C-alpha cells in the first residue's frame, strides 16, 4: 500500500504542521503534540480535553474549537498519547473551573490518561474523567478489556462541549458526558483492512467476497468473518446489533460513520438503509450525521452509532459548534 507521507516516523508531526498551516484558529504545538483552541483558557469555562492514537482523523484534533474540545492530544498512529501531552493540555486550557478528560476505553488510553490525571492534579488542576465505551461488538466484558470507545466519542465531545459553553460546572459536564455515553452504542464493519505507516501493508487479510463484522477502529479484525453482504444486509445486522443492546424508547441521534476508505456516495446509500431499518423498528431519528468522522486510516467500511436523545441532549447537540470538522450555528 502506498501512502502520501514522507517517512512513517514523522507522520503525526507532519500532520500537525499541516493543521497549524491550515487552521490559524488553533494553537498547534507540533513538538509536544497538543492542539489547543486559540482563545483558551476561556474564563470560567470548564475545559474539555481528549486525545488518543492518530489515524482516526478528524477525531480528535478536528473537533477542537468553540462548542466542542478545548484541546486534543494526538498520539502516534493507533497508539494512545503519553501523559505529558495531557498534562500540558490541561494546564493550557484550565481556567480554574476544572478539566474533563474524554477517554476512549482502550487499555493504553485509560492508563495514560490515568497517569496524566494524577500528574495534573498534583499541579493543582481539577480533573474529571469520562470513559467512552459504546462498541457492542465487544460483549463479554468479564473476558475482555471492556467495550471499545468508537463513534459515541463524537456525541460525547459535541454534547459535553456544548455544556461547557453554557457554563455548566465540572460535575454537570461530567454527568452529561457520562449520560451520552450510557445512551450510545455502536457497531462497525470492515470491507477491507487499513494500512498503518509503521507496518506498510494491510493489518489483516480480507479476501474478496468476505467482510468483517464487529470491527473496531484500529485495524484489528472483527468478531466474525462472513461472506460479502449488500448495504441493505449490513444495515440490518449493524442496526439490530445496536438496538438489541440499546433498546431506545425515544428518538435517537444517528451517526453513519465512514472508516476512511469508503466513498461518501456509498455512505449516503448506506444511511438510506440504516434509516429504513430504524423506520421498520419504529425508532424515530431526531438528527443524523453522515460522513467520515471516526476513521481508521484508509479502512473500507462503516459504523453505526445511535444515541438515545432527550430534550437536553438534543438542545446541546443543536448548540453552535465551530471546529475544523464539525460546524454549525456559529
Amino acid at each position, binding site marked *: 500500500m502506498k501512502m502520501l507521507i514522507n517517512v512513517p516516523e514523522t507522520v503525526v508531526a507532519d500532520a500537525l504542521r499541516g493543521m497549524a498551516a491550515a487552521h490559524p484558529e488553533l494553537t498547534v504545538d507540533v513538538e509536544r503534540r497538543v492542539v489547543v483552541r486559540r482563545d483558551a483558557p476561556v474564563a470560567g469555562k470548564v475545559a474539555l480535553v481528549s486525545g488518543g492514537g492518530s489515524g482516526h482523523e478528524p477525531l480528535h484534533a478536528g473537533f477542537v474549537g468553540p462548542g466542542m474540545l478545548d484541546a486534543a492530544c494526538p498520539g502516534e498512529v*493507533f497508539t494512545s498519547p503519553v501523559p505529558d501531552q495531557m498534562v500540558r493540555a490541561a494546564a493550557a486550557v484550565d481556567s480554574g473551573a476544572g478539566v474533563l478528560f474524554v477517554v476512549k476505553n482502550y487499555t493504553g488510553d485509560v492508563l495514560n490518561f490515568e497517569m496524566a490525571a494524577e500528574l495534573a492534579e498534583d499541579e493543582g488542576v481539577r480533573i474529571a474523567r469520562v470513559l467512552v465505551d459504546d462498541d457492542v461488538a465487544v460483549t463479554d466484558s468479564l473476558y475482555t478489556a471492556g467495550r471499545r470507545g468508537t463513534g459515541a466519542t463524537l456525541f460525547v465531545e459535541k454534547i459535553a462541549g456544548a455544556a461547557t459553553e453554557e457554563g455548566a460546572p465540572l460535575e454537570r459536564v461530567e454527568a452529561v458526558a457520562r449520560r451520552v455515553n450510557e445512551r450510545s452504542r455502536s457497531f462497525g464493519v470492515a470491507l477491507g483492512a487499513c494500512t498503518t505507516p509503521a*507496518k506498510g501493508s494491510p*493489518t489483516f487479510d480480507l479476501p474478496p467476497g468476505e467482510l468483517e463484522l464487529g470491527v473496531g477502529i484500529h*485495524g484489528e479484525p472483527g468478531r466474525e468473518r462472513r461472506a460479502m453482504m449488500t448495504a441493505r444486509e449490513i444495515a440490518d445486522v449493524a442496526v439490530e446489533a445496536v438496538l438489541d443492546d440499546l433498546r431506545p424508547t425515544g428518538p435517537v441521534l444517528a451517526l453513519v460513520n465512514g472508516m476512511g476508505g469508503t466513498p461518501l456516495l456509498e455512505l449516503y446509500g448506506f444511511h438510506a438503509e440504516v434509516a429504513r431499518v430504524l423506520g421498520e423498528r419504529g425508532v424515530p431519528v431526531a438528527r443524523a450525521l453522515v460522513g467520515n468522522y471516526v476513521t481508521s486510516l484508509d479502512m473500507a467500511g462503516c459504523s453505526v452509532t445511535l444515541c438515545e436523545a432527550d430534550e437536553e441532549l438534543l438542545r446541546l447537540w443543536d448548540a453552535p459548534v465551530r471546529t475544523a470538522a464539525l460546524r454549525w450555528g456559529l
Partner: protein
Amino acid sequence: MTETAGTYGTEFFVRWLEAVAEAVEREADRLTELDAAIGDADHGANLRRGFTAVRKALEEEPPTAPGAVLVAAGKQLISTVGGASGPLYGTLLRRAGKALGDDPQVTRERFAGALGEGVEAVSRLGGAAPGDKTMLDALGPGVEGLKVSFSAGRDRAGEGAAGTVPLRARKGRASYLGERSAGHEDPGAASSALLFAALAATARAEAADGTRTDGEGAA
C-alpha cells in the same frame, strides 16, 4: 568502578537496557507483525521509540545507581511510548528501580525481588492476571527463573511467551477478538522475553569479560 563478585552495578544495568534497545530494534518488525495479528500493529514501533529514548537519556544524563537507571528508563518509557505497553513497562522499571533504592551494587537475587515488585505493580495497574495472554505471562515466569539464574530467567520468560500462543486474550486489544485471539503469540509477552534474553546475554558477556565469578557465563 570496582565490582564485587556476584553483584551488579550501574554499568551493568545500563548495558542491559542498551542490549534491550538493540534487541527491540532488531525484532521490531516481528513484534509489530505479532501485534498486527491480534492487536493494532504498533508494538514494535512503540518499543523502538521508547528504548531509543531510554538509550539517549542514559547517555545524556548517566544515572549513578542501578535503581536510578531503572527509574530513569521507566520514566522515559512512560513519556515516549504511549499505548498500553508504555505505562506498563514504564511502571515495571520505575517500580523495580525504586525497590533497589540508592544501592550502588545489587545481587541477582535482589534484582529478581525488585523486578517481582515491578511485575506486581504492572498487574495492579493493568488489572491482568497470569493466563490473560499479556506480558505478565512472560514477566512472571521470567522473574521466577531469575531467582535461580539469569539463563533460567531467559528460558522461563521465553517459555512463558511461547505459552501464550494457545491462550484466549482477556486483556488489552487482543481480547476484542475473543476466540480468534487464540493461536497467536502475545506481542507484549514476546517483548518481555526479549528483556530477559538481553539480561542473560549481558550477564554472559560480563562473565566472559572475566569480571563475573558466579558461573552465569556458562549458562
